[in-house]
């Protein structure tokens, strides 16, 4: 069940096309990675979802309903370029922003108190924002993003500016929000956190969608039949043991252990590799090499750039 659907969304700024017929579906109660290099059009798409700007063509559906102004009250947005009024009090400001999201003053107050207690920052309430450190400001910002209990949350680089302890705290909060029923759109360049957190992704480059699907599926699609073998007690060249078509990609040696990556030809499996090498050595570990999101990202984006160079 998709909570958010984009149908052929196109946005132009003068002659520049920021989004070219983008379609995607964000499943409910999932973490959805919105990926792409700088300037790909991610922020424009997020702004369209937030109704900061409108699409030139196509439409966005929220729960199969065309996006309406009152949808902003069930969306929470933490922009990459974020900030607070520096001269305003923390509590006062949080109240103001919560009320702008449609909460009554009373509700906003109770919920904010709860969040401030949870993050153990009650004594910041009366302080001015400029008195807080950057990390502290980010915490306040996170609270005002989620305080109205939105059904859809959009986090743009949420971990920037946090120390590792707070990154963990924040990640746990995000996972808890999902288990409580929220859907999260997560835009980041940190591919490790994409692998760790995201269920689905879409990859945008130069206004076009170049990849989408479940993280697991995508990684399997990019599986190149490559295996990593760590072994001991064999000092000859392992390549001599391999049948034609098998390709030795990398090899290294450290602490009495050799480490190699071998790509198998199409149609062969791990059994054939194992049969060839097992009699000669003691194997410490044997594993499929599933490409990291980082590799996939770079491969895909570069492929598009190469194509566009060829075309032009």
């Amino acid at each position, binding site marked *: 069940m998709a909570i958010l659907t984009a149908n052929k969304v196109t946005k132009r*700024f003068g002659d520049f096309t920021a989004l070219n017929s983008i379609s995607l579906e964000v499943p409910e109660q999932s973490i959805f990675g919105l990926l792409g290099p700088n300037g790909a059009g991610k922020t424009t798409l997020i702004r369209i979802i937030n109704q*900061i700007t*409108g699409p030139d063509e196509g439409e966005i559906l929220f729960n199969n309903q065309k996006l309406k102004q009152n949808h*902003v009250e069930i969306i929470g947005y933490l922009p990459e*370029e*974020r900030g607070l009024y520096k001269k305003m009090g923390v509590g006062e400001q949080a109240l103001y922003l919560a*009320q702008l999201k449609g909460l009554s003053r009373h509700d906003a107050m109770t919920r904010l108190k709860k969040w401030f207690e949870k993050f153990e920052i009650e004594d910041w309430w009366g302080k001015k924002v400029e008195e807080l450190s950057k990390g502290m400001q980010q915490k306040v910002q996170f609270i005002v993003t989620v305080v109205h209990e939105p059904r859809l949350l959009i986090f743009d680089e949420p971990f920037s500016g946090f120390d590792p302890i707070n990154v963990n705290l924040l990640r746990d909060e995000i996972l808890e929000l999902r288990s409580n029923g929220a859907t999260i759109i997560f835009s980041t360049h940190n591919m490790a956190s994409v692998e760790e957190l995201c269920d689905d992704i879409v990859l945008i480059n130069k206004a076009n969608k170049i990849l989408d699907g479940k993280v697991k599926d995508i990684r399997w699609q990019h599986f190149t039949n490559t295996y990593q073998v760590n072994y001991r007690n064999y000092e000859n060249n392992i390549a001599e043991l391999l049948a034609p078509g098998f390709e030795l990609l990398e090899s290294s040696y450290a602490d009495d252990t050799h480490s190699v990556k071998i790509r198998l030809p199409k149609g062969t499996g791990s059994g054939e590799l194992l049969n060839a090498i097992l009699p000669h050595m003691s194997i410490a570990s044997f594993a499929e090499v599933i490409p990291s999101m980082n590799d996939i990202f770079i491969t895909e984006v570069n492929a598009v750039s190469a194509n566009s160079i060829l075309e032009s």
Partner: protein
Amino acid sequence: MNKIFLIIKREYITRVRKRSFIVMTILGPILMAALFIVPAYLALKQEEKRVITVVDETGRFAGKFEDSDKYKFQVMQTDLESAKKILKQSEGFALLYIPKPKQSVPSNAIVYADKQLSINLEEYIKNVMAREIEKIKLSYELRSALLAANPSYEPGGDTTSEDLMSEKILKNIKSEIKLTTIQVEENGAEKKSFTGASMIIGSVAGIMIYMFIFLFGVQVMRGVIEEKTSRIVEVIISSVKPFQLMMGKIVGVAMVGLTQFILWIVFTAAIIFTVQLSFPDKFKMPDQQQVSLKANTSLNTTQDTQLKNDPENSNDQYNSFYEALSSIDYPTMIASFLFYFLFGYLLYSALFALVGSAVDNETDSQQFMLPVTIPLIFSIVMMQAIIMNPNGPLAFWLSMIPLTSPVIMMIRIPFGVPWPQIVLSAVLLIGGFLGATWLAARIYRTGILMYGKKVDYRELWKWIRYKG
């Protein structure tokens, strides 16, 4: 709608709580009250009557000068030299010397004094003399006319029938003469002092509109830049529309301006009232009924004449200042001030918001500020010319163009502006405000999300044409 109210509230409360607002609110009325009280205080200081010695060689003017609250005319039957000596010894105020004329009619007088005479006193002396001379000339003409008609006519003694006749004639024809004088020269002593008050009120109102628009318009711009540089703007416009944020800010700041203005009026009135209570005799306001009569008929000739012949009024500087101030139609002034302030401010603050949204910081704002502020500054530069000719074509057109009308119209209104002109100017100003807001909103919604881009006018033009 509820959300725009939240924005207005925030803009209002954060500004009203600022120290600068409180300081301005207290300082303003003190300055304004001083404007009213200081002239009164100065008038109080010269409470004892000043003696003006009159040496009249013609013998025609002595006794014609009437004493007032401040001056006492004392006729002295000596020659000039000894009178001068007495003046020095007695530390008198001034000596008015009217020499015997070389021709038949006296035409000049000399005043010896330590200090400059007040304009009012000078005018008064001139007036009395002029009237007397007119009388002399007329009775001379009458006499020769009577003699020509009847050679056997015998002129009378000191108080001749001709003198009485000429006095009577003068009185009767006075108003007609005055009517032409007013239209040709646009003045008479009393009329002049009223024009002076219109000038003062007009310039003060014009300058205040200018200051208010500038002060609060720039506050809007700063607010927009603050939201942009602190990057909170994207958080907020994910909750409300950019237009709501912009209008909320503009309206919020307008309320701050109005609050300040109202507090100023209340405090100023309170200070003046308190001072008046503490010194009740010193601050005699002119009789209310008389004032309103004068105000209604300030263009009426008969009334004018009457005023002019009332030496007490034209003599008392302080009273006439008050009177002139009271002659202004305050309800119209205040209503139109509020209107022109509000809509002038709304028009300009939309433009200031536009500028704020297009730049990254205040130093960059200069290039776009200039075209916005030029019409405002131009209005102030033109003030002198408008005052000189408040109903001329320049004044008319500048008070129609929305960018200049708030200041120029406020300068004109104390001089009296026909209603159709005010209505037309008001409609144009509202139209200008709507146009400016539309333009500002289109640039604003793109501008607030643009960072680190060098923006020029071509870029702005592109933003205007972007679709929502």
